[in-house]
């Protein structure tokens, strides 16, 4: 239940605002859905009458997370996830904004669909939801969608979801056209022909399991093509989910050359590797696949350096019907919106990345890239705020997950740290008890 909209004062917290490189002990005052003030000693100076004062001693107050890539089954696959269930899961994971994939059934490839999703989210979701629109009509990779009208209707980016546009001419024209509207193109970089029958990372483990591998070249070939086309068109291009060290070289070269290119990686690819597949565990089947440990380490380093801009959940609910199958026949995908932060905190606790850098990649950077409110604690900004306990130990019980599907790779994982409270536009949307 949403609480009422009285002012909230978070006191004695570690205020962490990656958008302004601030990290200090202090208070944060929220009123009328916006951040009013963030500094030391607000509480002592007196607050508006009726303010809910919450002691956040020992806890972190940070901008709400913006998950740049999540599959929500609405419309068409409501048995997997609805906007309502996805938003409940999001709130429980500290995600205050969901950016959803357009490869629904039917796909979000016309302004009426954008409008439908926005209305439906307004009525049923407890966090902000923004759809990405399809880049090509019916996700077929042949004709571009109405990029201008879709953007005007509220689409925040353009992508064919987990499909790659294989026709380079189509991609080039879409990028050129998108530039005129300053639209962001988000692309799944997996050459489907090179993926072929592949179901897991190519290499020793696939060889041992008798599974067909997905070569790293499936990603690098597509990414290399894309960054050159993006540079040619001068359009904003974002690689949706990078997984391997070789891709980082391509990305670095493009960025160094000044191309308007950004990239994300999923929480799965920075916290898990191919060995987790073990003996055909389908919850670890993802597309693109989990790679080697050396790739994971390279991704985390790139994330810490800022070469990788964004970490997203790649939330993809799959039920037993699509997962309880032989590995090659099971659907790829893992839920993650609810565990993204907790899983990421593993890296923080292991000293692989700093907390501000992790939170920047999960909030400030996506807000900048998608031109969304949020991702900041700047006074006057929307009050999408989370309270994090960095240390609370817990064991993930899939039955307690809010998502409709339970295909989590962190099933029964020991985790340290979690979201304690999620505030969306000044209202508490989730509270951990």
């Amino acid at each position, binding site marked *: 239940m949403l609480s009422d909209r009285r002012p909230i004062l978070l006191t004695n917290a570690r205020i962490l605002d990656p958008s302004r490189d601030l990290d200090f002990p202090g208070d944060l005052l929220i009123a009328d859905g916006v951040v009013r003030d963030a500094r030391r000693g607000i509480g002592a100076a007196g607050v508006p009458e009726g303010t809910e004062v919450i002691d956040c001693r020992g806890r972190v107050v940070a901008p709400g997370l913006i998950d740049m890539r999540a599959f929500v089954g609405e419309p068409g696959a409501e048995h997997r996830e609805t906007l309502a269930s996805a938003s409940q899961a999001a709130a429980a994971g500290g995600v205050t904004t969901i950016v959803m994939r357009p490869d629904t059934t039917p796909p979000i490839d016309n302004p009426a669909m954008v409008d439908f999703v926005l209305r439906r989210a307004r009525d049923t979701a407890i966090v902000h939801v923004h759809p990405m629109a399809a880049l090509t009509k019916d996700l077929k990779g042949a004709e571009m969608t109405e990029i201008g009208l879709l953007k005007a209707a509220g689409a925040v980016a353009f992508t064919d979801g987990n499909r790659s546009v294989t026709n380079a001419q189509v991609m080039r024209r879409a990028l050129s056209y998108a530039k005129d509207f300053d639209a962001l193109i988000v692309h799944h970089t997996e050459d489907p022909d090179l993926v072929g029958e592949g179901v897991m990372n190519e290499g020793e483990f696939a060889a041992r399991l*008798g599974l067909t591998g997905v070569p790293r070249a499936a990603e690098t070939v597509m990414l290399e093509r894309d960054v050159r086309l993006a540079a040619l068109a001068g359009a904003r291009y974002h690689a949706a989910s990078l997984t391997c060290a070789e891709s980082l070289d391509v990305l670095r070269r493009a960025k160094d050359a000044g191309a308007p290119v950004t990239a994300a990686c999923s929480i799965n690819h920075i916290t898990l590797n191919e060995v987790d597949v073990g003996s055909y565990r389908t919850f670890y089947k993802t597309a693109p696949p989990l790679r080697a440990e050396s790739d994971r380490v390279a991704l985390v380093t790139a994330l810490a350096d800022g070469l990788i801009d964004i970490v997203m959940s790649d939330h993809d609910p799959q039920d037993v019907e699509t997962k309880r199958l032989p590995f090659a026949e099971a659907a790829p995908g893992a839920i993650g919106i609810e565990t993204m932060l907790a899983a990421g905190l593993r890296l923080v606790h292991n000293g692989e990345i700093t907390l501000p850098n992790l939170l920047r990649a999960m909030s400030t950077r996506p807000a900048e890239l998608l031109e969304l409110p949020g991702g900041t604690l700047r006074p006057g900004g929307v009050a999408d705020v989370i309270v994090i306990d960095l240390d609370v130990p817990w064991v993930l019980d899939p039955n307690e997950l809010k998502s409709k599907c339970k295909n989590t790779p962190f099933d029964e994982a020991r985790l340290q740290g979690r979201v304690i409270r999620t505030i969306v536009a000044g209202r508490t949307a989730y509270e951990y008890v």
Partner: protein
Amino acid sequence: MGLPGHASALIASALMNIAQTPAFVLHRRHLLGIEGLSRDEIVGLLDRAEEFVDLNRQIDKKQSTLRGRTQINLFFEVSTRTQSSFEIAGKRLGADVMNMSVGSSSMRKGETLIDTAITLNAMHPDILVVRHHASGAVELLAHKVDCSVINAGDGSHEHPTQALLDALTIRRNKGQIERLTVTICGDIAHSRVARSNIMLLNTLGARVRVVAPSTLLPPGIERMGVEVFRDMREGLRDADIVMTLRLQRERMSGSFVPSSQEYFHYFGLDEKKLAYAKPDALVMHPGPMNRGVEIDSLVADGAQSLIREQVEMGVAVRMAALEALSQNLPNA
């Protein structure tokens, strides 16, 4: 009837010998692969299979170890020799054997693998022998049933009884496996026989080589304890054993190799290429063969060929495996 007296006595004593030998016990519920089997377990199965070879050459081959037990051969992929080999093995041990193949099962009607497992499980089989076209499928099924499961081949993953019968064949002809050089040629990428053999032969101390065009070698294979060759002459040099693998028809025409003609030219085992191996090298093939594609008829039917003996060993090895698992069944 009609046997000379001394022959009957010989048989009787042979039977008594077999009856007196204690069964080898595998202290595990399933036989899902060679991976994870210890050297002792493999040798134990081979030793026991050796005794069944003798039994199988007798007139009265019937045993009662599996009397009252139900064995279901569940084949999601067509098979002649493996299925009949398991059927004969089970029957010789006294089990009631039932064959179920996909053509006549409800899998065709959309029933999932798991549902099939649960349905069969309700019929209280003691041993399921399963073949499936997907790697890992047999293990998945094994998690859902209460009986023992033997993997009769899962996708490109494992085919443990084939590797055991190959090892038995080699041991009987060479006296040992340790320090032999075994060259496996052909479609390594899609072969469960290759994977099981690589693991078993390594466990028993052989030197294993693989030879194939790069398109038929899975990347990472060199990390499985094999020497990798792309040229038959180099790969066969001084080999003691040459195993050729079947090349599936759909892989011959341009997708993995340009044509069966070109494949035979470079990788087909003919007498010329076999001459690079040791003079006493022996030739094996898991069958069924594509004559003139991966193996020349002269070699397949030649003096160095063990191909027919492999089939005989198959029954013995499967009897050993069935018996070894049955010792763990409830009320055994």
